[in-house]
C-alpha cells in the first residue's frame, strides 16, 4: 500500500517537474523584460516561435541524423532560444526605440507567431502538426540509484529539468549579485535616476526584452519536448500562464519558483487526470483546476494592489523629455 502511494507520488512528480520548469523559464524571461520596465505579453507568441523552430530542427535531427537524442534536443533548444530572441527584437524595437504602445506590439507578435506557425507548418508538412515523437526521458547515471531522491529527481528525467534549474540559479545571481542586474532593475524602477547615473536605459531595456525572448523561446522548446511531444501551432496558453505566474510571484525569482510548483501541479492534475489514479478518485471537473491559476492571479492582484512589488516604471516608454 505504502509502495503504491509512493509510486503514485513519484509519477505525479515526474509529470509536474517538466511542466513546472517550462513555466518557470518563461516566467523568468518575462521577469527580465518587466524588471527592465517593458511589459511583455508577447511571451506566448515568442514561446510559439521558439517551439516551432525548435520542433522543426528536432524533427530534422531525429529523422535524418544519428545524433544522440539528448544532443539533438540540446541543439533544438539552442535553435528555439535564438529564434525566440530574434523574434522578441521586434517587440523591443517597437516598444523601446519607437516608444509605441507595448501591449499593441506584443499582441501583433502573438498573432503573428500563431498564424505563421500554422501557415508554414501546413505549407511545408501539409498539416498543422510537426511530430517529434520520441522518448526524451533518461536516467542519470549513478545518481538515479540513490533511494527515494534518485527516484524523484534523477530517474526518467528530462534534460530540460537540469538546464532549467541552472538557469534559475543563474537568474537569481545575475539579477541580484551583478552590476548588470542592478542596472537592469534600476531601469525598471526609476529610469530617470538610472540615466542620470550614466546607465544607458535604452540598451538595458533592449537587453531585458532580448533575454526574455531567449528564455521564452527556450521555454517553447521545453514545452514541445517535455509536455506535448509535438508542435501544434500553439502552446496551450502556457505563455499567458507564465505571465500569470510572473505576476503571482510578484516579480521575484524565488517566489516564481515556489508558485510555479503550484501552477504546474494544477495543470498536471487537469491534463493528466485520467492517467493518475489518485486524481480520478476526486470528482471535480478538470476545468476548475485549469481556471484556478488565473483566478488566483486576479485575487493576488486585487489584494496586493496597495503593496504591489511591480517595477514602478513598468510599461512607460522612457522619455528623456520628462526628466
Amino acid at each position: 500500500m505504502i509502495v503504491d502511494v509512493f509510486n503514485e507520488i513519484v509519477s505525479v512528480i515526474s509529470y509536474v517537474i517538466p511542466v513546472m520548469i517550462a513555466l518557470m523559464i518563461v516566467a523568468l524571461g518575462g521577469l527580465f523584460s518587466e524588471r527592465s520596465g517593458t511589459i511583455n505579453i508577447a511571451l506566448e507568441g515568442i514561446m510559439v516561435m521558439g517551439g516551432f523552430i525548435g520542433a522543426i530542427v528536432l524533427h530534422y535531427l531525429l529523422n535524418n541524423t544519428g545524433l544522440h537524442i539528448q544532443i539533438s534536443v540540446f541543439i533544438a533548444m539552442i535553435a528555439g532560444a535564438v529564434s525566440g530572441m530574434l523574434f522578441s527584437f521586434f517587440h523591443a524595437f517597437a516598444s523601446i526605440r519607437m516608444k509605441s504602445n507595448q501591449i499593441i506590439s506584443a499582441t501583433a507578435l502573438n498573432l503573428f507567431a500563431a498564424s505563421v506557425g500554422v501557415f508554414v507548418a501546413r505549407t511545408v508538412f501539409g498539416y498543422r502538426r510537426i511530430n517529434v515523437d520520441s522518448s526524451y526521458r533518461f536516467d542519470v547515471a549513478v545518481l538515479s540509484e540513490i533511494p527515494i531522491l534518485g527516484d524523484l529527481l534523477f530517474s526518467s528525467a528530462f534534460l530540460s529539468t537540469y538546464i532549467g534549474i541552472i538557469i534559475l540559479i543563474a537568474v537569481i545571481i545575475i539579477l541580484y549579485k551583478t552590476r548588470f542586474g542592478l542596472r537592469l532593475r534600476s531601469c525598471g524602477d526609476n529610469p530617470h535616476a538610472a540615466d542620470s547615473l550614466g546607465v544607458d536605459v535604452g540598451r538595458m531595456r533592449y537587453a531585458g526584452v532580448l533575454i526574455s525572448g531567449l528564455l521564452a523561446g527556450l521555454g517553447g522548446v521545453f514545452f514541445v519536448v517535455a509536455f506535448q511531444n509535438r508542435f501544434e501551432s500553439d502552446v496551450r496558453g502556457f505563455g499567458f500562464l507564465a505571465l500569470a505566474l510572473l505576476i503571482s510571484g510578484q516579480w521575484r525569482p524565488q517566489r516564481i519558483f515556489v508558485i510555479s510548483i503550484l501552477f504546474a501541479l494544477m495543470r498536471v492534475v487537469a491534463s493528466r487526470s485520467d492517467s493518475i489514479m489518485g486524481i480520478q478518485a476526486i470528482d471535480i471537473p478538470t476545468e476548475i483546476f485549469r481556471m484556478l491559476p488565473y483566478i488566483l492571479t486576479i485575487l493576488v492582484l486585487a489584494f496586493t494592489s496597495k503593496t504591489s512589488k511591480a517595477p514602478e516604471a513598468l510599461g512607460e516608454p522612457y522619455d528623456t523629455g520628462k526628466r
Partner: protein
Amino acid sequence: MKRIWEKIIHPFKVFGRKTHTLFANIPWRKLAGWLLYPLALLFGALVALKRKIGATRFGKRLDKAWLKVLHWSGEKPETIKVASSLLAVVFGLLFGFIVMLVVDPSSAGSGFLTIILGPFQQGMRSVGDTIFYAVPIILTGLSVAFAFRTGLFNIGASGQLYVGAFVAVYIGVQWDFLGPFHWVVASLGAMLAGAAWGAIPGLLKAFRNVHEVVVSIMLNYVSIYLVNLAVRSFIFNPTLNRALGPESSAHIPTLFLENIFPRSSINIGIFITLAAVFLFHILLNRTVFGYELKSVGLNRDAARYAGMKEKRNITLSMTIAGSIAGLAGAMMYLVPGTYIRILDVPVEQGFTGIAIALLGLSAPVGVLIAGLFYGAINRGGYFAQSLYREEIVNVIIAVIIYFSALSLFTQQMIAKYINRRTKKEIQLKESEGDVG
C-alpha cells in the same frame, strides 16, 4: 555554385517531397525576376514619367493639386492619422505578397488578386458572406474602440465574446417557449453576460487600481474553461464533442436580405451592427455621460476634481465595452451551422478586434470600414485556399497591427514629408482616440 547552394538548402530536403520541391526547386532566378525586375521597371517608369510630365503643363498642374492636398491635410491632422492607417494596410498586404512570392512565385499574382477581390468572387453571395463575417469583427472592434476612447485597453473582448456566446446559445437551446422573441432575448442575454464579464476588470481598475489588461487576459482564459465546463454540463452534444445548436427560432433572422444576397449566410446582424455604430457615436459625442467617460479616460484625477464620479465611469465604460463584445458572441453563434466547441485558446475574433479598432482610429465609422476590410480579405483568404493556406490572412493582419503600433512613428514621417513639401510647420495634436 549550384553545389554550394545544394549544400545550403540540404537540410530542407528532409521534410519529404513537398518541402523538397518547395525549397529546392524554387526558381530563384525567376523569383528574383518576379520581384526585382518589375520593381526596377516600375521605378524607372516613374522617374521617366516624372521627368516627362513634370515639365509639361499637365505635370505642373498635377504637382499643384498634390501640394493643395498636402496643404489641406496639413491643416487637418486627422488626415495624417488616416494616412498612417492606410500605410499600415499597404505594408501588411505587401508583406503578405512577399510571403506568397517566397512560397509559390508562379501563383502569387493571382493569389494576391483573389485575396484583395475576395468579396466579388461569387457576386452577391460572397458580398453577403463578407458582411456576415465582418459583423462580429466590427462589434469586437467597437468594443475595443469604446474602451480606447475612455482611456482603457479592452484586451478581454475575446472572453466577453465567448461568455456572451454561451449564454446566447444556452437561451437558444433551452428557452424555446419565447417564440418570435427568442433570438432577441438570446442576444440580450449575451449582452448582459458580456457586460458582467467586462465589469470585473472595470471594477478592479476603479476600486483596486489593478491594470485592466492583466485582469482581462486572465479572464480570457477563465472564460474558456468556464464555458467548456458549462457547455459540458448543460448543452453538450457528446457524439460530436461540441455544444448543441440553437433552435431555429433563435437564429438571427435574415428578413429580406436572403433575396438580395441569395445563398449567403448574411442576416440582420449587419443592421444591429449599424445601430451599434450609430449609438456609439451618439453616446460618446453627443451626451454628457459620454463626455464624462472621455474625461475620465484623459485624466482620472482631473475628472474627479471636476466632480465626476470617476470610479463609476471606469466601471461603466468597461461594462459597455463588454456588452458590445457579448453581442458579437450572439451574432457569431446564433446562426445555423456554427457551434461552440471545446477550446484550448481564446477565440481569435477578440484579438482581431484590437486590430480593427486601431485601424479604424477608434472612430465608429472607421471601425465599420476597417471591419468590412477585414471581412473582405478574410473571404479572399477563403477563396485563395487552393493556392495558399488561408492563415496567410492572419499573417497579413498581424503585420498590420504591428505597423499600427508604430503609427506614432509613421504619422511623424508623414508630417515631416508634408512639412518639407509645404514648408510649413504642422503640429501633430494628440486626440482622445489615440492610444499610442
